[in-house]
Structure formats: structure tokens, C-alpha cells
């Protein structure tokens, strides 16, 4: 691919840093702040783009694992909808970003219903609670690594890089 994505991002960064920012009046603080954030987003996207589909596929895999763990714990009224959502998720094209996002949305919606338990009328089994916590820990850590470059994560120093996270998943 010519020009490739990395080259185009590099060109955009140079234009913003060396042409646009110097042209902005110093009093235009909001505009300057926003350009700096755009630069930050672009730098982050440069590290992320090649892994984006794989990352989303990993998110769906994590959620399917949670669904599988919940399957034996849930009230019978949820069993069929959970089985259906898991089946669709398993058959989702792992190279199709949009399909992966849709599967995450649909499976996640069923899991949400299970967690709420008809607004507390149905108990959430301790094993189900533990499975959700375990999933939450796995997924949050992946996402924290994915976005560590924002500098907002106070414990980012302990996180693996995106490349390390993705190689561990493969």
C-alpha cells in the first residue's frame, strides 16, 4: 500500500506540529489544546491501527469466555438467549471489525440482563459474580494497555505495551 498508513500519520503529525500550531495565535488556547489532543490521538492510533481488529476479536473472545462461565449459573429464563448470543459470537468473522463490535454488543446485552436479574428479583450466584470480576480484570487490563499512551492511567508503568498484550493473546 502506497502511501501506507504509518507514512500518512507521520505526514499529518508533521503538518500539525510544524505548520498548524505555529500559525495559531497564542491566545487561541482552546484551538491549541485541541490540536495537541489530535496529535496525541494520532500518535496513539499509529501504535494501535495494525492491531485494532485483533484487539476487538480478543474482546469478543473474553466476553464469550464469560458467557460460557455464566451458562451453568444463570436462571433458566436467560439460558436460551445466552446460548443464541454465544452461538452467533462463535460464528462471527474475526477479521470483520464491524461484525465483531455487533457481536460484543449483542452478547453484552444478554449478559447485562443476567447481571441485573430483572432488577434484583433474581439472585446473582456467587460463582457468576466471581466470573464477571475475573472477566472485568482481564478486559480492563487489556484496555488500559491499549490506551496507556494518554498518560491518564496513574499505574501505566506496570502495564505491558500494546505489542506485548497482543502477542500474549495470540
Amino acid at each position: 500500500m502506497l502511501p501506507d498508513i504509518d507514512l500518512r500519520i507521520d505526514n499529518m503529525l508533521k503538518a500539525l506540529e510544524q505548520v498548524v500550531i505555529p500559525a495559531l495565535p497564542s491566545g487561541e488556547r482552546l484551538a491549541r489544546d485541541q490540536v495537541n489532543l489530535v496529535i496525541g490521538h494520532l500518535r496513539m492510533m499509529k501504535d494501535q491501527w495494525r492491531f485494532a481488529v485483533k484487539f476487538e476479536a480478543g474482546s469478543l473472545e473474553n466476553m464469550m469466555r464469560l458467557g460460557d462461565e455464566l451458562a451453568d449459573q444463570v436462571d433458566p429464563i436467560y439460558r436460551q438467549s445466552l446460548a443464541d448470543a454465544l452461538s452467533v459470537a462463535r460464528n462471527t468473522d474475526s477479521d470483520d471489525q464491524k461484525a465483531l463490535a455487533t457481536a460484543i454488543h449483542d452478547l453484552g446485552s444478554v449478559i447485562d440482563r443476567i447481571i441485573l436479574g430483572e432488577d434484583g428479583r433474581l439472585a446473582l450466584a456467587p460463582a457468576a459474580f466471581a466470573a464477571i470480576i475475573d472477566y472485568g480484570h482481564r478486559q480492563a487490563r487489556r484496555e488500559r494497555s491499549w490506551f496507556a499512551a494518554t498518560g491518564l492511567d496513574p499505574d501505566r508503568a506496570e502495564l505491558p505495551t500494546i505489542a506485548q498484550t497482543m502477542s500474549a493473546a495470540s
Partner: protein
Amino acid sequence: MTPSGAAAPLVEIGKSDDVGAWDRGEIEPRIKTILDRTVRQRATGPYRPKSDAEVIAMLGRFFAHKGYREVAVTQVSRMSGGASKEQFAFTFRHAGDTEGERLVLRMDPLEAIAQTCRGREAEVQRLMADHLPIAPVRFHDADGDLLGQPAVILGFVAGVTEPTALRGKGVSGMGGQLGEFAAKLAPQYIHALATTHRFDVANTTFDYFSVPRANSRQAAIWQVNWWSRVWWDSLVEPVPMVTLAERWLRENAPVCDTPVLVHSDLRMGNFMFEEPSGDFTAVLDWELAHIGDLHEDLAWTTQKIFGAWRDDGVFLVSGLLPRDEFFRLYEEASGNRIDPVRLHYYEVLNAYKCAVMDLGQAMRAAKEGNNHQEVVLTWLGSAGAVFLDHIVTLIGDR
């Protein structure tokens, strides 16, 4: 609407006559109005940032309606900072004041990371102006009847939110450093928190606030219902940890014996000071203020994301002082005693609130194009997993 579609309150069998933990109708009335309005107006976007000329025209009409003659709005300057309101500094002159006053317009875009009420913001700032350094409220338009968008107009206050020498390290008050100013700022910060919590709620008649019942779970449930309503109304992608946190918060809601005024966002970035004295010039950003449990403020400000680390590796609450010292000095200044169980509950609630704002409301506003700086919303939204991981730690070990 929640996934279970349970809009109607449920009656809890075998519970006391306290509020039902799952009664979604238990929400502060003015908050319900604001959230209803958010949903109603969502589809009218996208929002386009206002130009200086549009701001001049809006303010001109507003002041004329207020009865001012020979109005001149000049030196309009868009301000940076904040993740929610569109802000402009301007000079207001009229027949009775030809020299003019420098003012700040804080105006709602169509949607922001937090949907709040300018009437409440104006009211609480007016009430607290006798107690703390606060930007004076000159005007407000709670529902945008005159300006076209809800707004508050404040007197301009000079100062900085981070030392000039360290400027630019953070976004929206997060990730910043206060450096040598921390020692000067810490006592004023403790004083501001304690003074807020000592405000005489019982003998005040509010226009825009309701007071939850004492010795009841109502204070906690109002907050859970506020933020869970935001989550389900703005949902972009399901997040099981957010839903689990909601259930935990309902099933563990504590009684609040004495509701107090809670600032709700008093941390680094939301107090302004002058250099080189370090004297507070204004406590900022009262938009999330409500009457509730004092532990909510303490748990909010002790979140890691709002703090900083000293060179020796010690974590500083709000970039100011170590956690234990913060609690000790707060108890001394306020006379309040900190209950570890309630503190823990509000740590979970605050992490939940932050996750809802970052992964729910901010993402929806950005997706709809209903804000004036979506690039900030998606930047802040990327911190959502930090709060999810914090929830895991807080409720996973119990």
C-alpha cells in the same frame, strides 16, 4: 431504559420503609428534569461550537431582555479547560457601567461528559460565596429561555489551576502536578472541603436542590439512580463491569445519617490560586454539587487518577498531601468522623460514576457530535478502563 425494561418501581418484600434499592423512580426531581431534557434534545444535534459573533449576539439579546441599555459586549475570548461547558470570557458594558466588567459565560453544549443544571450551579455558588472564595454569579439562565442554551455568567477571577512552570502536563485537571505549591494549597483545600460539608443545609430553602431524608438510604440511591439512568440512556456498548457495579451499589447502599452539601468534584484542577502566594482565588466547578453523604467527596478526591506522586513515591491526594494525613486533617477541620465502610461504598460509587461518564455519556455525546470538543471526550473516555479496574479491585476482594 434498562435491559430488563423495568421502568416501574419494584416493592422489596421484607425490607423496612426505607427507599427500595431497585426503585428507579427514586431520583432527585431536578436531576430527572435535566436527564429527561438530554434524551429529548439528543436528536436535535449535531452541535456546532459557537462563534464569537454568535456569542455577542446571544449576550446582546440577553442583556437587552434584562433591561440594560446601550449594551456592548466586547473582547470575546474562547476559554480552554473543562470537559463539559463551552466557556467564553468577555467584557460587558452598558449605560450604567461604561467602564465595563470582565465576565465569563459558561454555557451548555447540547451534550457533555456530565449533564448538569446551570440553575443549581448558580444557586450553590451564590450560597457558598459568603464562605469560600468563589467566582461571583452575575446571571443565570437555567433552561436557556433567554440565551437559547442553559448558561451561567460569572465574574472573571484571575488565577491558575496549575503552576505556570508546570503547565500543560494534564488534561481537565488530571495528570497535573502542583509542585512546591502543594504545601501552601493543602490547608486551603482541607478548609474548602470542611466548609462545604458544614454548610447549613437544614435551614436553607433551595430552588433547584432537594434534600434526601436523614437516616435513610435515599442519599445513596438517588446517586445510583442518577448515574445508572445516564448509563442506560447513553449506552453505546455494554460493559458488564458497569452493570455489576450498579447491582453492587444497589444491594450495598448505606444509610446516610446527616446529608450535607457535597461539592462532588473538588480536586486538583478545580481550585484556582494566584502565583506566587498560592492563595486560593476560587473554588471552581460546582456543577455536580448535591446534598448527600460527605464520604462521597472524600472518596472522589482520593481517586488515584486525580492525584500525583511525590518524588519519594508517596501518593498525594489531589496532588497535595498523603492519604492518611488528608483524612486526619479533614477530621480535625470538619469535626466529622470518617466511616471506612461508607468510604468504601462511595469509592465504588465514584469509580462507577467516572466509568459512566467516560464510557457512557462522553462516548454518546462524541458519537452524536453534540459537544464542542469531542476530541477531549474521546481522550478522557480512554480512561474508562482505569475506573473499571478500580471497581474490580474494590468489590472483587469482598
